[in-house]
């Protein structure tokens, strides 16, 4: 994907030297394989640090709330949806942003790849359009790209930026006929007690680091409810009840606001599938309100708004 | 092995509301076990962790002097969880005390010197301990002149009003009480901010140490005046505050640079502070 990267550098250079923006938000090559590093570039000379590959999965929208300068941002489909929501929720102004859509083929999941290595150490990766080549001491494996997508990317139906000032390259074809909720239906089909133990197991390894929360572009409350002390809503140990309370309440707070960008899951050091919670709410919102988060600046999340034909009676 | 996290049980003997806004109360504490009392040997300037079972612990400067041997005094401002819980307690209730913790004003170095004590607001607590200590017959002769400048927002916000009045009557201590504003026509002391009064009264820096405790804004404007008056940094002493938990240098949160305020402080000279990052 050298060409994408070069285009980015070119665009950044121009935007910065013409002072169209004060800064460009993009990625730098990571210091280890399958990693990337978000950077904010302020000077044209810095533009050549930009990098792009299938591990630039961090949602860059997470760096926007409350910024003051004019920023150009390279936005994948998911990033752009979070930007829409952030604009709707007054975290950043549309006029401040120059959004460069980066059509996305799905990002790769470094942990899935790691699992193939069986303890062997990866020293580098090379990408082609269909394959990921793994290089290590005495081995070179090739993986079929499509089998190692991040789970949210595999079921993504908005790979092109939904809002943009320009597109870096031609849009990619959107995936069609994707079943987004297979896993959610499986959980819904469980008996209550089975479901409870499913979530119990899911969250048992959690170390309460809150990386999932901090990685989320929609978790921008000035003080998160878990950090409040008067009153203190929940304990701070790794007591399972407190841990579950954190996750359940966080998920509810994202109902209709989560874009399924996967940034939470990606950040979790314990590889916990926290999207299992947000996806259920995403499905409910879709079924109840026909709403998909962050597709348009004209539609606020349903739980942020009131409309006379809301499905529930009690709110009228 | 002594467990440094285990508080001594104490009984609240009395509670005195100090200020007109009722936000500051002084708690007089008596040890449940006399053996604990004997172990608790402090110097003025140190603090202790007060423990409210079920609520948590708070670091509070020890307001009683080491010369007041039968009890401990703490004056507590109501701000958050633990201080509010403590304010709701009354005589007879049992709490815990852990300490004494931290260092103290440099009494060894200050011996034979003149002492200038400058305090503002409710940060007067360990200064009260210091004054009572200095005025004790056993100690008074070991120090030179004692000057105190103490200010609060209003007359009703002054701590230890009876003692202030009593000290004001003595001739072995010079005391300048001031308020930011007074609407009481009978107010017989100064009106003005602490820095201004310090400038006006201009205590001599000769052979003197200045001990300064107060809100950041007071400190900020008082230090330049002390410098003008000729107090060198090494004889300008301050007590700092950082959020604390363990109080014994282990939990890692109260550092300023490499110094743990709970263990290496809270008392620092300006010389020491000038070498640390200004992150407090």
């Amino acid at each position: 994907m050298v060409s994408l990267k070069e285009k980015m550098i070119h665009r950044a250079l121009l935007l910065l030297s013409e002072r169209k923006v004060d800064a460009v938000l993009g990625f730098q090559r990571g210091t280890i394989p399958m990693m990337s590093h978000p950077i904010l570039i302020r000077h044209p000379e810095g533009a050549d640090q930009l990098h792009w590959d299938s591990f630039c999965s961090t949602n860059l929208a997470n760096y926007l709330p409350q910024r003051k300068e004019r920023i150009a941002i390279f936005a994948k489909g998911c990033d752009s949806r979070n930007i829409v929501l952030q604009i709707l929720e007054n975290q950043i102004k549309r006029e401040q942003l120059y959004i460069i859509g980066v059509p996305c083929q799905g990002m790769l999941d470094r942990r899935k790849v790691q699992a193939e290595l069986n303890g062997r150490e990866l020293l580098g990766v090379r990408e082609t359009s269909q394959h990921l080549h793994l290089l290590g001491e005495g081995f070179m494996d090739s993986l079929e790209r499509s089998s190692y997508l991040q789970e949210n990317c595999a079921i993504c139906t908005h790979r092109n930026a939904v809002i943009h000032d320009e597109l870096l390259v031609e849009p990619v074809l959107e995936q069609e006929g994707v079943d987004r909720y297979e896993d959610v239906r499986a959980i819904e089909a469980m008996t209550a007690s089975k479901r409870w133990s499913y979530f119990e197991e899911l969250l048992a390894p959690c170390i309460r680091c809150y990386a999932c929360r901090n990685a989320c572009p929609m978790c921008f409350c000035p003080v998160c409810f878990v950090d409040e002390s008067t009153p203190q809503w929940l304990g701070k140990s790794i007591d399972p009840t407190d841990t579950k309370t954190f996750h359940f309440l966080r998920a509810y707070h994202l109902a209709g606001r989560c874009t399924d960008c996967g940034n939470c899951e990606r950040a979790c050091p314990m590889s916990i599938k926290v999207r299992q919670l947000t996806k259920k709410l995403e499905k409910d919102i879709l079924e109840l309100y026909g709403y998909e988060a962050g597709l348009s600046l004209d539609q606020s999340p349903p739980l942020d708004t009131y409309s006379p034909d809301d499905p529930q009676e009690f709110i009228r | 092995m002594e467990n440094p996290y285990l508080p001594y049980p104490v009984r609240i003997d009395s509670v005195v509301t100090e200020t007109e806004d009722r936000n500051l109360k002084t708690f007089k504490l008596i040890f449940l076990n006399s053996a604990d009392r004997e172990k608790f040997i402090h110097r003025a300037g140190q603090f202790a962790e007060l423990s409210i079972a079920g609520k948590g612990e708070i670091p509070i400067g020890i307001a009683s002097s080491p010369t007041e041997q039968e009890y401990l005094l703490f004056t507590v401002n109501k701000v958050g969880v633990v201080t509010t819980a403590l304010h709701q307690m009354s005589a007879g209730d049992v709490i815990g005390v852990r300490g004494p913790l931290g260092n103290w004003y440099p009494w060894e170095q200050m011996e034979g010197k003149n002492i200038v004590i400058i305090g503002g607001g409710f940060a007067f607590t360990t200064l009260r301990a210091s004054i009572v200590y200095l005025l004790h017959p056993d100690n008074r002769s070991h120090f030179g002149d004692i000057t105190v400048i103490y200010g609060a927002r209003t007359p009703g916000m002054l701590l230890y009003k009876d003692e202030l009045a009593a000290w004001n009557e003595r001739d072995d201590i010079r005391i300048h009480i001031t308020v930011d504003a007074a609407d009481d026509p009978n107010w017989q002391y100064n009106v003005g901010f602490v820095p201004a009064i310090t400038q006006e009264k201009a205590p001599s820096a000769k052979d003197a140490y200045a001990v300064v405790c107060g809100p950041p804004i007071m400190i900020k404007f008082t230090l330049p005046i002390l410098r003008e008056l000729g107090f060198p940094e090494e004889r300008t002493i301050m007590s700092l505050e950082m959020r604390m938990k363990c109080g014994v240098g282990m939990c890692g949160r109260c550092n300023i640079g490499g110094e743990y305020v709970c263990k290496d402080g809270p008392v620092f000279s300006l010389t020491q502070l000038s070498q640390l990052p200004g992150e407090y």
Partner: protein
Amino acid sequence: MADRVIKKSEFIELIDRLLESYRVYAPVRQQDMTNFQEISAADQVDLSLANTTMSPKSIMLPQSETMFEFNVDKTSDQAAILRETEKDLSPRLIFGIRPCDAKAFQLLDLNFDTVAYKDPWWVARRKTTTLMGLACNAPCSTCFCTSVGSGPFAPEGLDLLLVDVDDYFLIQVITEKGEKLLNEEGIETEAAGAMKQAALASEKSSLQSIKSVVSAASLAQHDTKTLFDSDFWEEVQFACINCGVCTFVCPTCWCFDIQDEVHKDNGIRLRNWDSCMFPLFTLHGSGHNPRAQKLQRLRQRFMHKLKYFVDKYDKGVACVGCGRCVQQCPVNIDIREVFRLMND
């Protein structure tokens, strides 16, 4: 003390035997990672990954641990009086700990085992725990232990060090505590010259394979305030999301919080890992926060490890080069780069 040797097949039996007199902790597979856990049989051990995702610090400093218990029933004459919680301090063995992680315990001793105060639980656990380390024949590309006073075969902090040599483990005896364990279990066969040669060869090739190097030599000389005020923090901090992952996975991050919890009439005082990356860490009751900004919190982590600690103890940096933070930081903030910025 002469090196011993044991066949791997017998070693498995040894661990099973040791389970009778020790609580044994070892790396155990948890999906696609391994972590230290108390085991009940030797076959639970999984040494296939270079190191565990979480460091073994939780064995000495559990993420959440009860310190005291009390009741808040006002009618009781013991109300509000704290009692120390009973702990199981029976002998423990950590098997498979890497030299860097053992060295980390030694560094944490500087914090928890001081002249003025001793953390009773840390000190007791250190005393009752035997560390049977495993040398790293194949360090990761992110390991930089040799730059920070440890190494893939470094004995510091360990009681015994096992070296994997084909079908055998060569056992280096480092302390009397380790020797005692071997003697009690009758592991007395001394390693032959050829075995020692093989172990030495492994050590040499392992050392050579470490390509990741940082320099720490000038840290002590630099002026604290100059480092503190450096411009590079602005750049380093940009990507950080203050998630605290780096501090939780790190073997040399020890900060903790103390909390009270009450259920009905019974209460506990417990301590939990905390992180300088969290805003609550330093928030005053008044609302003032000396480290309110992300930059200040990130700077605190690195200044603490690479400067304050260096100056305070003169025992090097508070980092053992395990590379966990490098691998786990979701946005690739690489401490090796910060070493460079601070040291050079």
